[in-house]
């Protein structure tokens, strides 16, 4: 790790020298920020400008004045992406169809300021309502979440996008939503002083009645959930939920090897599902005295019971176990807090060295549960890295910070090649995790043209592997002159598409893509290929109509 740090410093100095030698002439980007509904200037927003192809990830920041006008002064010439966000507005990727797609590249040349940019920020949409019990009495302190119908890992599913607690009148407001179709559900995490109590007495013999996860439409059954369609900036009131009472179960257990000086919480996370993503379902405090805990109010299903420091959001010190709840309370779940396994790894760059890459990082993302963060490893100069892992389960290896000419050639775990999009990591797996990167990536550039064969800016370009892994797919937004660039492409067979609009993630759904396959350009790319290709846009995406 220390070596890696030295390296980063070295590189930072190096790039600094480069910029010192660059032409002293600077340039600027100017524009205005407007409310997409009213056209009024937006004053309370931040503009974040990201330099393309540099090692730093920190944006350059500007703010609009009273007229919504902003200016980035003293910019070095180069390629930039611009994003905007405000407390009452959704994040905007400049030039992209939505924030699911990358912002368009702004190519700024010395002495040629870019002016007249107009950023139309979509005001937040809101869903609000009240949660009550059978008698119509308000239920305070319940968690209400909005689930948006969206593509996740190549499948259309309902993904949690916002969550709030009801107030003393049972009221909630789910804010920062974008226009679209939602489901809303309330769950009772039994947040109260009882949370701190140790399990006492024997477990009840039968399930006990309790408030269960209930969708708007007053059903615990997702197929009976009512959808809520909201428009841009709309405040949809009266989305009231009457909570369903049903038998609930408890999980009891004991934590061993817990650090003495920490207050720990046990959290039950529901497994990822098409209906509701992966959500927190219950909590209990771990008794400092003997490590025992109890989580109440659960319904049958698969849970990840995770133990972590109560004051720390990061998962670094967590331990967890997957349990199945059937129709009975579960006792004696033992969770061992070990200092943590260490997965050793090796990052090799064929035809180059680590320092040729931008800022390589390997992250292990658990696929079945939505954990707050993913353990990661940064390779040192010799390519060695370690990843702290404690939880066994199914993971995806996300490799980022490569250079434009690099791609992941293979990932091996303990000598066997694995699918980077999904592999099992066993308890105490020591690795090695070998990541082979090649600097012979293919790149594609060209122009997107419309129905009239004229260059088309703001189009979405997707490059989809044929029968391959999702992580090989590449996307871009075409520039105002229709130009697009895709890089870091692994050799293989692909289909190339351009769209005037497309819902985020839809390109990874084979079902969705099937009808379009015949309209794509088929490619067989070799290492270092640099084709220049003109792409015709497809007719409008129909996926938004369902």
């Amino acid at each position, binding site marked *: 790790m220390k070596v890696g740090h030295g390296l980063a410093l070295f590189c930072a100095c190096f790039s600094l020298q480069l910029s010192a030698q660059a032409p002293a002439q600077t340039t600027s980007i100017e524009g205005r920020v407007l409310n997409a509904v009213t056209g009024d200037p937006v004053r309370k927003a931040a503009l974040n400008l990201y330099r393309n192809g540099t090692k730093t990830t920190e944006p350059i920041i500007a703010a609009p004045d009273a007229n919504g006008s902003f200016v980035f002064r003293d910019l070095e010439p180069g390629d930039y992406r611009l994003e905007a966000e405000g407390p009452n507005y959704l994040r905007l990727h400049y030039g992209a169809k939505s924030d699911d797609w990358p912002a368009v590249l702004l190519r700024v040349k010395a002495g040629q300021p870019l002016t007249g940019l107009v950023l139309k920020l979509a005001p937040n949409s809101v869903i609000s309502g009240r949660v009550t019990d059978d008698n119509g009495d308000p239920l305070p302190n319940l968690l209400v979440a909005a689930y948006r119908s969206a593509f996740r890992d190549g499948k259309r599913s309902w993904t949690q996008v916002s969550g709030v607690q009801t107030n*003393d009148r049972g009221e909630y407001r789910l804010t920062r939503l974008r226009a679209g179709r939602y489901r809303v559900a309330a769950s009772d*995490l039994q*947040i109260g002083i009882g949370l*701190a109590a140790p399990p006492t007495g024997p477990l009840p013999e039968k399930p006990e009645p309790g408030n269960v996860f209930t969708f708007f439409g007053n059903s615990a059954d997702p197929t009976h959930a009512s959808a809520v369609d909201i428009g841009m900036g709309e405040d949809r009131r009266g989305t009231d939920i009457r909570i369903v009472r049903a038998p609930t179960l408890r999980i009891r257990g004991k934590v061993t090897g817990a650090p003495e000086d920490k207050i720990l*919480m046990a959290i039950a996370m529901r497994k990822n599902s098409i209906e509701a*993503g992966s959500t927190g379902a219950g909590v209990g405090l771990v008794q400092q005295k003997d490590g025992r805990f109890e989580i109440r109010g659960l319904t049958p299903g698969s849970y990840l019971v995770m133990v972590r420091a109560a*004051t*720390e959001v990061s998962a670094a*010190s967590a331990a967890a176990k997957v349990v199945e709840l059937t129709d009975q309370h579960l006792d004696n779940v033992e969770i061992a807090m070990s200092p943590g396994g260490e997965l050793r790894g090796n990052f090799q760059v064929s035809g180059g060295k680590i320092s040729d890459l931008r800022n390589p990082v390997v992250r292990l993302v658990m696929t079945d549960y939505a*954990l707050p963060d993913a353990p990661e490893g940064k390779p040192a100069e010799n390519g060695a890295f370690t990843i702290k892992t404690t939880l066994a389960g199914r993971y995806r290896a996300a490799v980022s910070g490569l250079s434009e000419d690099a791609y992941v050639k293979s990932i091996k775990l303990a000598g066997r090649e694995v699918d980077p999009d999904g592999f099992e990591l066993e308890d105490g797996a020591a690795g090695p995790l070998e990541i082979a990167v090649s600097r012979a990536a293919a790149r594609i550039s060209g122009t997107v043209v419309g129905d009239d064969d004229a260059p088309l800016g703001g189009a979405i370009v997707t490059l989809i592997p044929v029968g391959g892994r999702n992580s090989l797919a590449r996307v871009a937004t075409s520039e105002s002159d229709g130009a697009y660039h895709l890089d870091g492409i692994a050799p293989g067979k692909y289909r190339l598409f351009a769209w005037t609009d497309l819902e985020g993630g839809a390109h990874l759904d084979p079902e969705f893509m099937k009808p379009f396959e015949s309209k794509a350009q088929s490619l067989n790319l070799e290492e270092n290929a640099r084709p220049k290709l003109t792409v015709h846009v497809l007719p409008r995406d129909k996926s938004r109509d369902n």
Partner: protein
Amino acid sequence: MSHSYRQFFQRTLSLLIPILSMVALLSAFQEKTVDPKPKGEDSKTKIEDAKKASIGGVVVDAVTGKPVKDTSLLVLSPSAGGIGGSVKSDEEGKFLFKNLDPGTFVLMADHPRYARQTYGSRNGMLGGTMITLTIGQALTSLTFKLQPNAIASGRVLDDDGDPINGAMVAALKPMYVRGKRQFLPVATGASNDLGEFRIANLAAGRYMLVALVMNPATAVVKTAEGTENVYIPTYYPNMTDTIGAGHVEVGAGRDVGGLDIRMAKNKSVHIKGRVAGLGENQKASVQLVPKGVGLLAMLTSRSASVKMPDGTFEITGASAGSYMLRAIDPSGMMKSLGASVPVEVGERAIDGVTVEVSPSIEVSGVMSMKGDSKDAVKGARVVLEAIEGLVIQPPMTSAAEDGAFTIKGVVPDKYYVRVLGGPASSYVDTVTLEGQPIPDDGLPLTAAIAGKLEIKLNPAGASVDGVVHGADDNPMAGVTVALIPASRKYLLYQTTFTDQSGAFQFKGVTPGDYKVISWEDVEPNAFQDPEFLKPFESKGESASLKESGHQSVSLKAIPRDAQ
């Protein structure tokens, strides 16, 4: 996806913190009033079931008298190590805690439509009746009257009158720490996209309200000129200091609305630096703690995570003022990792601050009984109470059978050495380090400390007991009783609350001269402030205690309106 988890996590945590601090507060003053386990018995030996005590009763609405179902009840019992258990009231409002070891208990109730309150408390959460149970006693006829929620509601606005989303509004109650008046957040609410907030679960009374934005991404506002401003903690209605801040009076079952807080903004800068001395893969955060805000530092500090492996950090949103900068363990209840560095923030960004992480000190020692007492010191806890600053969980440990103890992970600082849970009639006779008595104003611990701490307990502690009566000469339950040493030595102050029959008891009192004074309702520990105490000194009873001495006193509670 992880975003939703974070929200979930932070919401459960925001509830947990006040409970944990209440538990810590309660356990600190109850310790001495607890009867020891029968002698000769290992503390792990269970008392036979027949000898177990129970507490039960019915929960009713204080206004209508109707039973309240689904109330969460929590019993705290310091003798059993904190939280004794939790039950819910049934359809008829009834509840029962069984199988309790005899001792002293505090009962708390939580129901969404009622104030979060302690049984017998005069002001909601703080204080309350100490319920004493003897062997086999079944006290099952308690009536726990729940006060309907008092609610403070309003909006959080910026200087244009636009709503601020995601601000926290905390209701504050005064309390004294080591003679200084401070403010404790007792309940919080968050503002929504319309700026609206509601703080429910309040007990009727007077509060101060403070609005703050904890998330640096929301708190820091960029200007078109390229500078940064930060929302600073603002007291209702628009003050930036507790002095002159308005009070809000809320009544039970009432919603006091329209409490709009217009948040102040100050120019802010970044503070960059490095934490030196961290271990490989050691997680740390830095915290910029404003000076002189006491307990509010819990909410008003600005923090940033430390980037490994180089240990660098960057704090945003620092506005002009005097601060202490410290490295903390983010998972360890804000535990310091080393000494704090004073930082003066002005108009300019600060770079190059170094915060040293000190190798934590191990303090070991031995505790013993003076003379030939056979009382076991096993299980007695040694607590190092920092003289300054905010510590949620002070370093502490329990003595082994032979009296040996080792406290690990102690940060260099000045500490009081306190003993909790020793044999009930004992007091701390001497505390020495390498034969040298430690100063009254605390033990300065540094990395260089080599010697052993020697704690001698004296079994011949004195005791004071009595009953408190009200103006009508009836015994009063749940009122404060303070034992105030003539020497004004901080460690000798004791405080308790009367039990269900108005009785109280102080055991293990260090011989000397004391005043015993009772207040019906007083800001916690206010009597540690000589200014506060002056007009009341004549109202108490004097106690002049010798070794093993005993004195009984009869007290009149100083009524609330006499303060």
